[in-house]
């Protein structure tokens, strides 16, 4: 994906040096709109740093990053905060606010950023929680009373509350058992299918090959701060790159 217009996220000559170490090295690629793209790589490859750049939480040492046609370098801190409402993010451990119930967690962004009244918020939150498979009797439970899988579902419902244009998943299946992993995979795919019509782009940061191959449209392989391969998933499995082959064989 080399065209600026076609890409949801367009990265050009991005270099990041943190603590004297080059974490991302002259990175250039585009993440296509309306597709599921997975950024794959070993631990320490720079995946999380790249994620922070996409969210505008980190400033690049050099180069640029455009999201939905907006160069993040040109935005002020205040504009960036506003711009981040285009994103929804499912964190590795869901990152639910532990003092709020599942319902309050999902209602949180709606209370913060919309003019909806209490009834409208209730209707939307109920819809979102039901759509990710949470039963009504768990709506008012605290995160500590929910299982890991349920927390992920609530986290996803919260991320979708503001109808994001880009949905980010940070290591969505790390540390989960096979059944919960499958549940999360299905959840990502269903979310994609439900939102594809309104043009939502999904980006997954992972080192889980199985997940990547099952649900992705495109795969970018990151190693030592460089994209060494970026292909549609069906071509990625046949990649001749030694590192990719090694990774796929794991």
């Amino acid at each position, binding site marked *: 994906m080399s065209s600026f217009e076609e890409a949801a996220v367009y990265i050009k000559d991005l270099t990041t040096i943190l603590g004297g170490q080059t974490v991302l090295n002259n990175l250039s690629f585009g993440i296509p709109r309306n597709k599921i793209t997975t950024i794959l790589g070993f631990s320490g490859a720079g995946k999380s740093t790249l994620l922070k750049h996409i*969210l505008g*939480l980190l400033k690049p040492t050099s180069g640029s990053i455009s999201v939905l046609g907006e160069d993040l370098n040109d935005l002020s801190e205040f504009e960036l*905060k*506003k*711009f*981040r*409402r285009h*994103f929804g*993010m499912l*964190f*590795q*451990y869901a*990152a*639910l*606010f*532990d003092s709020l119930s599942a319902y309050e967690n999902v209602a*949180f*962004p709606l209370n*913060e*950023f919309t003019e909806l009244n209490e009834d409208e918020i209730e209707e939307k939150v109920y819809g979102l929680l039901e759509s990710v498979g949470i039963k009504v009797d768990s709506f008012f439970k605290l995160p500590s009373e929910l299982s890991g899988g349920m927390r992920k579902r609530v986290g996803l419902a919260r991320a979708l509350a503001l109808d994001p244009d880009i949905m980010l998943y940070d290591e969505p299946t790390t540390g989960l058992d096979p059944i919960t992993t499958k549940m999360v995979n299905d959840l990502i795919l269903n979310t994609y299918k439900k939102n594809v019509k309104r043009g939502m782009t999904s980006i997954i940061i992972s080192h889980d090959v199985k997940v990547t191959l099952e649900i992705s449209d495109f795969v970018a392989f990151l190693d030592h701060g460089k994209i060494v391969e970026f292909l549609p998933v069906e071509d990625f499995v046949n990649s001749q790159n030694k590192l990719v082959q090694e990774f796929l064989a794991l």
Partner: protein
Amino acid sequence: MNKLLKFFVLIVEKLGFSLMNNLSGLGRVIFFCFRFFYWLPKHPFRLKELVSQLYDIGNKSLFIIALSGAFTGMVMAYQTYFGFRLISVDSLVGPVVALSLAKELAPVLSGLIVAGRSGSAMAAQIGSMKVTEQLDALEVMGISSFQYLAVPRIIAASLCLPMLSSIFLFVGNVGSYFVGTKALMIDGTIYFSKLGKWMFVEDIGQGLIKSFFFGFIISVIGTYFGFKVEQGAAGVGKATNQAVVWGMISVLILDYILTSFLVQFMSG
């Protein structure tokens, strides 16, 4: 001789490193204060969070503050009485205890109690939110975690401490009065007349001003260490500990600095 020199150099190096480390820490805390004043007037004003913090820091500290105040006043009455009786000025027990409480004991002890109770809680809450990515979740939503978490806590602590200190002062004086008049047999009328003669509004004002600054510094330090947490649960424990230690030390240092200013402008 060479070994001695090396040992000396090592000590100087370590002292220098420690000094630089503490100075840079102080610089970061000052920068943190500036961030507070930057975010203070920014929209939206988080009233719900503020009320919740006022309840946590203020209401939930009431019992321990009242209890500490009562016993401090009672002990002070005893100690003062047996000292003053030697020079036959035991009728001054009331004003001496009241002045000690108003100017020093109420604000400082309330500050130390709040540093131990609420300063540590702030560091632990924010720290555990940081290690579980809840702060990142706020930032990704476009909400400043600093504005959402630090600003209401700092305002609430700055407002609560003068109130808690006033309660400490009142209960302490009640305790002193009871011990003075019931156990030490000082005449109640004399107790009150001497109190009225030697105690001024400015004395109470000094304590309240100090309390306000103590509340500010305790909450700045508590939230600062919370945001600074690294390395998971162990980091949260360390931050909580540092928040208490540095909160208490700051109260004592600030007490000296404020006293040296206030005695010049507000001496009763």
